[in-house]
C-alpha cells in the first residue's frame, strides 16, 4: 500500500454471484474518478484480510452487497465507529467469517481505523451469474457519487489536520 494513500476504499463481492458483485462494480467506477491519496481494492471479503487492511489506514470505506429483505437497490450507510453492524443484515459473503464479523472482531481487538464507513447495498439476484440487476446498477451509480463526495470531505479534513506544504507556509505554521 502506498504510504501516501490515507484513504482505503474496499469493494467486496463475488464476480460470479450476480448482485453480490456490487462492491466490485463500485470500485471499478470509482477508479475512473482518479481520487487523490486514495487506494482502491477489490476484495472477496475474507475477514482476516479485511482486519489486516483496516488496521493499516486512517480512513476506510467498505462497499458490500446485503440481503436483508429490504427493497432491492436500497443503500444503507453505517459509521462503524459509532454503531455495531446490525446482525440482521445478511452480507452475501461466500465466507462466513466475513465483513460484519471482521469489523466486530477488529473492534474487540482494538484494530479499527479512526474512521470506518460501510455502505451496504440491498441486492436482488444472488444466483450464479455474471452481471448486475437493473436495481443494483442504479444503486452503484448513487453509491459512487456518495463515496466520491465523502472522500473529498475526508481529504479536506486531512488537509486541515495535516496541512500540505504550501498550505503550511501560507498559514505560517513553519518558517
Amino acid at each position, binding site marked *: 500500500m502506498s504510504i501516501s494513500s490515507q484513504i482505503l476504499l474496499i469493494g467486496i463481492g463475488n464476480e460470479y454471484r450476480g448482485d453480490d458483485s456490487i462492491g466490485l462494480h463500485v470500485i471499478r467506477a470509482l477508479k475512473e474518478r482518479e481520487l487523490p491519496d486514495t487506494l482502491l481494492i477489490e476484495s*472477496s471479503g*475474507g475477514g*482476516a484480510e479485511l482486519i489486516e487492511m483496516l488496521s493499516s489506514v486512517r480512513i476506510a470505506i467498505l462497499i458490500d452487497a446485503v440481503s436483508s429483505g429490504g427493497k432491492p437497490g436500497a443503500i444503507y450507510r453505517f459509521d462503524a465507529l459509532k454503531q455495531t453492524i446490525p446482525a440482521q443484515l445478511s452480507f452475501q459473503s*461466500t465466507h462466513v*467469517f466475513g465483513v460484519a464479523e471482521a469489523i*466486530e472482531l477488529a473492534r474487540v*481487538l482494538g484494530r479499527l481505523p479512526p474512521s470506518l464507513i460501510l455502505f451496504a447495498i440491498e441486492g436482488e439476484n444472488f444466483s450464479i451469474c455474471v452481471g448486475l440487476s437493473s436495481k443494483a446498477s442504479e444503486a452503484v451509480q448513487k453509491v459512487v457519487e456518495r463515496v466520491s463526495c465523502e472522500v473529498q470531505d475526508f481529504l479536506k479534513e486531512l488537509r486541515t489536520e495535516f496541512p500540505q506544504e504550501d498550505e503550511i507556509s501560507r498559514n505560517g505554521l513553519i518558517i
Partner: protein
Amino acid sequence: MKNKTIKVDYLARVEGEGALYIKIKNNKVSDVKLKIIEPPRFFEAFLRGRMYTEAPDITARICGICPVAYQMSTVHAIEQAFGVTVEGQLRELRRLLYCGEWIESHVLHIYMLHAPDFLGYPDAMHMAQDYPDVVKRGLQMKKAGNAIVALLGGREVHPINVRVGGFYKAPSKQELGQLAEKLKWGRDAALETVLWTAQLPFPDFEQDYEFVALRHPTEYPFNEGRLISNKGLDIAIQDYENHFIEEHVAHSNALHSMLKERGAYFVGPLARYNLNFDKLSPLAQEAAKNVGLDSICKNPFRSIIVRSIEVLYAFDEALRIVEGYELPEQPAVRFQPQAGIGSACTEAPRGILYHRYKLSGEGLIMDAKIVPPTSQNQKTIENDLLNYVEQAILLPEDQLTWQCEQAIRNYDPCISCATHFLTLHIERE
C-alpha cells in the same frame, strides 16, 4: 419429548451456505439431511470452449479460501494431458504455494471457526474478548500464509501467477529469502497452536471410517501421488472415475460422491494424517507425539489438533523450500498443447480435489469435471450426524443443535465450492 425436529436453516461458521435437517422419532434419529444450496457446475460449463491458458485463473475463482488448490488440480490435469512434467525448483515452488494456502485455510478454521465451539463461544469475536492474544496469534499466522501466496501467486486472493508448466514469473532468491523470518515465527506459533488445541475438551466419538488421501513415496502429499485408503484402495488418479461415483440425492443440489465398492469415505486433514504420518517432518511427528496424538486418529473432533499439526508441517516445509531455493532458469517448462484427456487430484486443505479435462489439439477445453472435497465428505458428515446425535439425544435442544453444527464443522466444509447446479444462467459479454 421423544419426537422432535432439528432444523438449522443457516449454518454459522461453515464456509458458504448450507442447511441441516434432522428428524428424531422415539429418541431415534430417523432422518438426516445436510442440504447444500450453492453450486458450481457453472464453472464446468464456463470452462468449455475456453483455452487451457485461461483455466487456472477461472478455477481459482471457484473458492476464495482455496484458489491455489483449484489452480494446482487444473494445471496438473492439463499437464497430464499434454505430457508435461514440472520438476526441480518449479515443483518446489508449487509445494511452497500450497503450504501458504494450507496455513491460511487451516489457521482460519482453527482460530476463527472451530475453536469457539470447544470453548463455548458463539463466535470468534466473543472468544477474542477473553482470548485476545490467542486470536491475534491466529491472525498473525494467517498473515504469514498470505505472504507466501501473495509472493508466489502475484496477489493474496485469487493468485494469478500460476500457469500450465510452472509460473509466469519465478521469485528471486532474495525475494523468497525475505519470507524466512516470518516463517520461523510462524513455525514457533504453530507449535504453540498444537499445544493449545490439544488441551481443548473433546467428546469421545470414533467411527470406522474409510480414509482416502494421496500417498507419495517420499513426501507428505500436496500435488502428486497415488490415491489410497485404509481399506485397500490403491489406484492411479487416472482410475479415479472407475472407483468413485457422484450420485444425485433428492434433498440437495449437491452431488454426493461415493466409493463404488464401499460407499461413504473421508477426505481431508485426518485422512492425510492417518495415511501419511510417516511422511510428516520429524518436528511435526514429534509435536503430535508430545501431545499424545497417535499416528492414527479416528475422532473427527480432534481434527483441530491434526489441522494444527499440518500447519506446523506447512511452516516447516515452507522453510525447507525457502532455504534451499535457487532461481530456476525458466519460470515455466516449454511444451506444445496436444489433444487428450488429463486428470489430477491434489490435496486441497479440505481434502482431495479431482479435476479432469478433455482438450483439443489447439488446447481448447472440450469438457471439464470438478469434484471438490466437501462433496466427497458429505455422506460421511451425514453418517456422523446420525451416529453422534443418537449419543447426545437427551441433551436440551439448543445444545444438541450446537453439537450438530460442531460435528459438521469438524470437516471444515466449504459449501460454496462443493455443489453443483442444474439450471444455468450465463451471461456473456
